[in-house]
């Protein structure tokens, strides 16, 4: 029987992948459910195994299945997209972290190993912890959650901290609009995240780890839990991991609908069973983190990049990228975009290449007017900035941020004053309330923009708005209040006409 691959990724399921899989099974295909390749405009994307490789068909609606099967889908002869790996969208990418996503059965440990899984963990376990930390430092890997802090330096701090008890925590509270790479990795290749966390545990001397997943991701929660159970059964977690001296176990914890818990100290509070209110830093979590113990807190994509680095060498990773942004990043094209999905490529690709070449412009067919990069706290950029390279420093210099790599596209019908208002509205809704600039400032921001939009003392209120932004930037305890001014100010700066 021919093997036919249909994603079980929740985005693919959201447009009918389950129905398509059931119909293909009934038609006689041996259906394997994989993650998604990240070509989301083609979902449900069906792939058929042939001697030359996997041939793709998509988007396949349930009502298309009979016709495609009659035309020869099950032996890959029906006209379709051709070989999936030869598609330009795929060929132009450098998939290191996402190499197995969309390819393997996410819950098959055999598939994981057959596709190079655990090579990084085996390499790490053969090294003393300090050398593992050294490799991660040399790779130039920086935190993919948004802050961009060098991962190796964080690990070094935890390794050097004296404590009987240390923790590795994975921040999978992916609440930024326009980002979904954490979710897709957890649903499509959970063993790689487990592997990355296990390497971190060995590197810093931790025995216990937690993955904090937002409750909005039920499929990712179920997949991670199943993968952890399978990993325990294989001896990849628990006592003597892969026969080594390392003991490490992992637990999934579920958030409860609070965006702020994506902030690392707030996440730690939540893991401890408290309100998700941010902590003042210092002390940093690497020294006093979960339950006051030295703790590695990393984003899903940072931890999932580590196995590749250990398997292929820090130098190979550091060879990619530009300036101080080394390696690849997993960019996510979202919003009003013709071809949305996952683009993993070396840093340095320009915003225009991502939005126009990969994304194909807007889905509505109207001109692109603005893109928001880096989530709800990221800047709105106009098309005139499409030459900007995706690079932490270049973006910072332009008053923007790469963040978690999400890029949300808007066409020319967008009202940027309304988007600036929404930034404040969101901050007011999600503020943890601990510091005044964020808690009160966000509400005042909504009121001030309402006055500006109503034409009430417009010039004076624009000055007041800028003053409020300065205060929130300088006075807030964390990035929630501190960065909410970024989308607001960039909207005023680049789209001033919408505020008149």
């Amino acid at each position, binding site marked *: 029987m021919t093997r036919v691959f249909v994603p079980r990724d929740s985005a693919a399921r959201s*447009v009918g992948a389950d129905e398509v899989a059931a119909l293909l099974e009934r038609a006689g295909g041996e259906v394997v459910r994989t993650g998604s390749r990240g070509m989301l*405009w083609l979902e449900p994307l069906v792939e058929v195994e042939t001697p030359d490789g996997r041939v793709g068909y998509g988007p396949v609606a349930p009502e298309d299945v009979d016709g495609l099967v009659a035309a020869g889908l099950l032996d890959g002869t029906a006209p379709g997209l051709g070989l999936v790996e030869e598609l330009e969208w795929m060929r132009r990418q450098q998939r290191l972290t996402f190499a197995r996503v969309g390819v393997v059965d996410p819950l098959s440990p055999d598939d994981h190993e057959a596709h190079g899984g655990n090579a990084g963990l085996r390499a790490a376990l053969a090294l003393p912890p300090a050398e593992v930390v050294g490799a991660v430092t040399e790779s130039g890997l920086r935190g993919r959650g948004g802050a961009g802090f060098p991962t190796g330096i964080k690990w070094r701090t935890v390794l050097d901290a004296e404590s009987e008890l240390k923790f590795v925590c994975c921040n999978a509270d992916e609440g*930024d*609009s326009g980002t979904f790479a954490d979710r897709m990795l957890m649903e499509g290749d959970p063993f790689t995240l487990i592997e990355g966390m296990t390497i971190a545990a060995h590197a810093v001397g931790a025995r216990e780890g937690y993955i904090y997943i937002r409750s909005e991701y039920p499929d990712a929660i179920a997949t991670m839990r199943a993968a952890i159970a399978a990993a325990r059964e294989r001896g990849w977690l628990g006592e003597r991991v892969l026969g080594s001296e390392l003991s490490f176990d992992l637990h999934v914890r579920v958030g*409860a609908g609070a965006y702020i818990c994506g902030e690392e100290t707030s996440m730690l509070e939540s893991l401890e069973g408290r309100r998700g209110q941010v902590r003042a830093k210092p002390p940093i979590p690497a020294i006093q983190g979960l339950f006051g113990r030295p703790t590695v807190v990393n984003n899903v994509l940072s931890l999932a990049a580590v196995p590749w680095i250990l398997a292929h060498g820090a130098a190979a990773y550091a060879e990619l990228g530009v300036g101080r942004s080394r390696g690849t990043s997993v960019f996510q094209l979202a919003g009003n975009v013709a071809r*949305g999905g996952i683009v993993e490529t070396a840093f340095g690709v320009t915003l225009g290449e991502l939005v126009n070449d990969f994304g194909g412009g807007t889905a509505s067919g109207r001109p692109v007017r603005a893109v928001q990069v880096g989530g709800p706290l990221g800047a709105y950029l106009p098309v005139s900035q499409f030459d900007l390279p995706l690079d932490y420093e270049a973006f910072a210099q332009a008053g923007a941020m790469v963040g978690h790599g999400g890029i949300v596209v808007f066409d020319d019908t967008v009202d940027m004053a309304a988007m600036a208002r929404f930034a404040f509205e*969101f901050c007011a809704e999600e503020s943890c309330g601990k510091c005044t600039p964020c808690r009160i400032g966000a509400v005042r921001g909504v009121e001030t923009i309402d006055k500006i939009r109503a034409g009430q003392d417009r010039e004076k209120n624009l000055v007041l708005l800028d003053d409020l932004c300065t205060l929130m930037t300088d006075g807030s305890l964390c990035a929630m209040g501190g960065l909410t001014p970024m989308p607001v100010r960039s909207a005023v700066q680049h789209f001033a006409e919408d505020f008149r």
Partner: protein
Amino acid sequence: MTSVTPPRTAAEECARAALAEHGSERGPLLPVLHAVQEKLGCIPRDVIPVIADGLNLSIAEVHGVVTFYKDFRSTPPGRTTVRICRAEACQARGANALVEHAKRQLGVEFGETTPDGAVTLDEVFCLGNCALGPAVQVGERLHGRVSPPRFDALLGELR
């Protein structure tokens, strides 16, 4: 004198079961609350003292946590909860118009339940389906490219 123990309510029993299952974990409060809500659909007021006692916390601490997180409800929702994503990526695909349509169709605002108890409507900020918006979650099931007619079809399946 004889002491009489008042009979335990079903909610209390549920809280005790959750405590027995999760009480020995580190930082067990959120897992306990999730377990209770999964069974009862909400965190009833009368279980808060039971949970507080079981975890050696004050009632105020537990109440504070329950009210901080948007997921935890004090009353049960309708038979199905429908959540519409209002975050930027879905707004770029017409989420605001969908929200207006949904409120009109159901005759309720966010956080409210239809009079027949069938549907609770709510907003959510990002479901991670940002390339296939507008996104809607029906129960635990995610739906993409939800136009107003598709929304009506999804509602039709619930009734």
